[in-house]
């Protein structure tokens, strides 16, 4: 799976989890850019991502990504 494919799947996960079809993600998107993405929903998002890609992040990784691009890299490194 390439980066673009992961990005587009992530966007679907964000839309579903945050229940907001308007969410649009790019590599440079940060939590500040997405309405409803706060420290609490972050946990929900992480679990949804783990379930979708069938992987587990470490406790440290969960708080490590500065933007969506880093999250995409994180997923690739686990696959």
């Amino acid at each position, binding site marked *: 799976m390439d980066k673009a494919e992961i990005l587009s799947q992530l966007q679907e996960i964000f839309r579903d*989890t945050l*229940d907001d079809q308007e969410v649009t993600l790019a590599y440079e998107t940060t939590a500040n850019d997405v309405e409803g993405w706060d420290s*609490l929903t972050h*946990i*929900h998002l*992480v*679990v949804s991502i783990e379930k979708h890609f069938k992987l587990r992040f*470490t*406790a440290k990784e*969960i708080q490590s990504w500065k933007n969506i691009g880093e999250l995409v890299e994180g997923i690739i490194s686990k696959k």
Partner: protein
Amino acid sequence: MKTFTQLVKNLKNDFSKLKSIRVAVLGDSATQFLSQALRGTGYDYGLDLNIWEADFNQIERQVFDPTSELYEFNPEIVVIFHSSHKLLGRYNKLKPEAYSTLADSQMELIDGINSSIGLNCSAKIICFNYTEIDDTVFGNYSGKFESSFIFQLRKLNYQLMQYASGHAGFYICDLSSIQNLHGRKTFFQPSIYINSEMVVSIEIMPDVASRTLDLISAMNGRVNKCLILDLDNTTWGGVIGDDGLENIQIGSLGIGKAFTEFQYWAKKLKNRGIILAVCSKNTESVAKEPFEKHPDMVLRLDDIAVFVANWNNKADNIRLIQSILNIGFDSMVFLDDNPFERNIVRENIPGIIVPELPEDPAEYLEYLYSLNLFETVSYSNEDAERTKQYQVEAKRSIMQKSFVNEDDFLKSLDMVSVIEPFNKFNTPRVAQLSQRSNQFNLRTMRYTESDIETISTSEKHLSFSFTLEDKFGDNGLICVIILEKEDSETLFIDTWFMSCRVLKRGMENFVTNTIVQSGTRHGFKRLKGEFIPTAKNGMVEDHYKNLGFTFDNGFWFLDLKSYEERTAFITAKPVNLQ
């Protein structure tokens, strides 16, 4: 079961038509997701949970301060969630010689919480029990050593059950059994705990919420009362009509074992007071044969309240069962191995619960356990007698058909009713009926045992409980009246509910005669009644009108002086009548 994400989506739905309940959630771990899951699940249970959530780790401050936001919120239900993690944290900080005091001191805290809530509001308490964490510091030796953490934790769970059995408004939500069912790996996600203080994984949240809602909705009178069984390949293996008595599978061999164990489960439910009925496509005599003759059958004909075996469609047969039992379709569970029959029933009978039984009968029981179908918040000895009462009812309805004249039939029943005020013997049953009567209930006020005790000693109230016995058997306590002295002339009927088992026996007339006499004796001039509609009590909409009350400005009135005694063929046996 829905996922947590789906439950969160529920939060956007319209809750305005649902029954609203104020629920306070107090936890020593992060509870935001739990609250969301509870409200989202509540929607699917038809409840609008108005949730107030205490700030993180504020249980004691909220509970022990009489002026706290908790009491300002005035909850109807308080959910207390002490996590095993925090318990372990406390244990870790103890001096080793104090390890063995953990369970006792935690129980003391819980007792304090329960008492304080009881003093400051009338909420019922739902306390989560403790999911097991084995720190393995003592290995298997933990089981021999009281100071080990797992020893203390299990002792605490046991003490909690003992405590709950002695405290009426205190209920346990069995979190530990959810973890047992799904495993700790599913229940707890360490990486999420480290980042969020959440000790319940998002994956298991819907299970936790649903188990809690089972309890909340049972508190509001939603309980399942009847289990309807298909026979071939559900109650026994094979087809009795084709295979014959000798060849159906039941007993200790092979797959027969699964059906035997299933029957023991149904039998335990029957002993608890769940009504068993049979609905089978069979010739009746053939269907009954195993119950009468097969040595390995656990269920016998006298375990079954209503036995329907014919070639009509199952939806019609379930309607027939319903008409005899007089309970709501939404309190019935139908088990059938055949997906086609299940669909017919599901599509034609709204509200009935039709579990998707697994294909393999070996899986039936584990699957049924996981559904927690028969939640209850009370149990009395009368529950166990229920099957007999419904069998008697079936006989009665057959006999009724032989009388042309309704009055002749009622006279022939030799009915006797014992009338008593509330006392310590009937209080549990009165409270229980108050929790579960939905249909014949004029105002649907729900009272706990302690409420009933208060009313029984109150100067402002007159209380009546009625039993009904006839030549076929004793129905037990079937009707409750609470009259409130509104002013010197008016008695307000705060509560009137009756078991639907005794409809059409003239009980309404008899009760009216009784309370009119009592009111007159106490010098009152009128009775005042009210009908508060709910989704289920449409049958009593015209109740007061039929009894001769007149409607004025939202209430129904009956003048005592001009009242003419109504016809009833019931003999009163008053005991210390109020």
